[in-house]
């Protein structure tokens, strides 16, 4: 039985499979389907200082092997999380990654200060493409990434910081380095690509928000390429995600340089996707006589 445990920035994960933010809430619903303590970690629904109502419906649409969402950061606010959801997640014994977003730069500093020491890691959402007020602007340009990372890091004395990178950028390597320079302890990628689906009968976008974040199996090759580029541009650890559906997909990301992976959209197609990926990963390693999952990280050789 291969070792699945990984360590990122001093935080232990019992396996490298983490629920991706936005698809998993705060874990309570999926815990009715299976015991979520089997997971390596959970990245929470993106939180803001104040509760947010999010966008109008429809908030979801489909393309070939992808989905688009425009939930718009509906969330109960960080205080609600600390009081109601964090104790539940703590009891479950999974690594808790608080995914946070801000309307303004200052919001990031404030929410990081509030969560410092309470969660295992903080993941900055600087690339949510749905919130006009902030989101995209912060996540595109390296100078902005540097600034928001620096401010967030200065408000985190105890908790390691992950910066989640947007793929809707000129150079993922440059942006990864900007996060590292700003003091990020870790980066995660990719967030969703921005897309649109049109209802041709109505000649209108299907999503009420017009555009949405594209995720799911169809984006995996793009994500693997970007994880490869980013992980070779920085020294800090990388968490890879984008279209992971099965254990073999996770292995691709690990080989490309990720130390752990996040799984999102696959949970919609199969509620048991993550426990199956964890189980499959162990079997894959055993089948290949590899005793430790960490041994396959960054083992890709280019042609």
């Amino acid at each position: 039985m291969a070792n699945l445990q990984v360590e990122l920035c001093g935080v232990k994960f019992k396996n490298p499979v983490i629920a991706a933010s936005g698809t998993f809430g705060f874990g309570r619903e999926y815990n009715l389907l299976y015991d979520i303590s089997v997971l390596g970690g959970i990245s929470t629904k993106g939180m803001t200082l104040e509760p947010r109502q999010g966008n109008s419906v429809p908030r979801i649409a489909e393309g070939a092997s992808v989905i688009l969402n425009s939930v718009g950061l509906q969330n109960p606010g960080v205080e609600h999380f600390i009081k109601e959801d964090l104790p539940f997640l703590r009891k479950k014994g999974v690594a808790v990654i608080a995914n946070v977003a801000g309307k303004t730069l200052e919001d990031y500093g404030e929410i990081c200060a509030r969560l410092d020491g309470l969660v295992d890691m903080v993941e900055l959402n600087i690339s949510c493409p749905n919130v006009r007020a902030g989101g995209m602007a912060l996540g595109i340009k390296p100078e902005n990434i540097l600034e928001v990372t620096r401010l967030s890091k200065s408000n985190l004395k105890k908790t390691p910081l992950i910066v989640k990178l947007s793929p809707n950028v000129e150079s993922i390597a440059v942006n990864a380095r900007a996060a590292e320079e700003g003091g990020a302890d870790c980066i995660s990628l990719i967030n969703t690509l921005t897309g649109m689906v049109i209802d041709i009968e109505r000649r209108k976008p299907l999503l009420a928000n017009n555009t949405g974040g594209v995720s799911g199996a169809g984006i995996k090759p793009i994500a693997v390429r970007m994880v490869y580029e980013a992980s070779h541009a920085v020294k800090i650890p990388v968490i890879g995600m984008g279209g992971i559906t099965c254990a073999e997909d996770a292995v691709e990301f690990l080989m490309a340089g990720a130390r752990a992976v996040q799984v999102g959209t696959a949970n919609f197609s199969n509620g048991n996707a993550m426990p199956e990926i964890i189980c499959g990963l162990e079997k894959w390693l055993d089948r290949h006589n590899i005793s430790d999952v960490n041994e396959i990280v960054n083992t890709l050789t280019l042609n």
Partner: protein
Amino acid sequence: MKDLLATVKSNKKIAENIYMITLVLPEDAGKMHGGQFVNLSTGNGANLLRRPLGVCIVEGDEVSVCYQVKGRGTQYLSTVEAGRKLRVLLPLGNWFDLDGYSDIAVIGGGVGVFPLIATIREYYKSKNFYSYIGFRNEDAVCLWNELNKSKKLTITTDDGSFGEKGNAVSAYLADRNNIRADVIISCGPPVMLKILKQKLKEEGIKTPCFVSLEERMGCGMGACLVCACKSASGENLRVCRDGPVFDINEVQL
């Protein structure tokens, strides 16, 4: 709630553009009630989203749901043959809980009829149903024998090609003094539910009324916050988990 690989027993056209698919579950998923739904894979790997479909008929380890062919996903689903295995998450959501009621007015329209049929089947031996069901035309009429488990059944069509010409809400309003309904249950197109709410208010009808809503969904279990609707006070509710059945006065339509 379980996420299972179910075997397709049959997948048949039952009306114009409407299909009924019967699934055999590999294990017990718990009791299923009328108003609850399943999140069913289309069988095409390119459709990552499952389709939320109201439970229609439950018999032993078999569950049947009906769907209208609307886009590529349901088009594909309609080609799925017996023997195929489809991933399904079930049972989901709340249901029409009729405990404490004896005479039920049922107002249904189009594909909204299927969860109502499940509810009639669940309770018809002990309660009286007075059903007012609207279809577009005679080609859309289906599952008459199930609807006919009602004590009284009125079918309306938009063009009068079957039953009475008109709509389900008007048919109920015209007949309401002849029945003594102590609760109304309804499911159908958003515009029908909106008119129902408006008419109940206008006519000062105080009978409790529960409606089942439809919305595009992601996870189906309340985690992803995709299928939002608004409560009367403007708060977000999750159609999949707080509903799909709501008191008509407690949601904005």
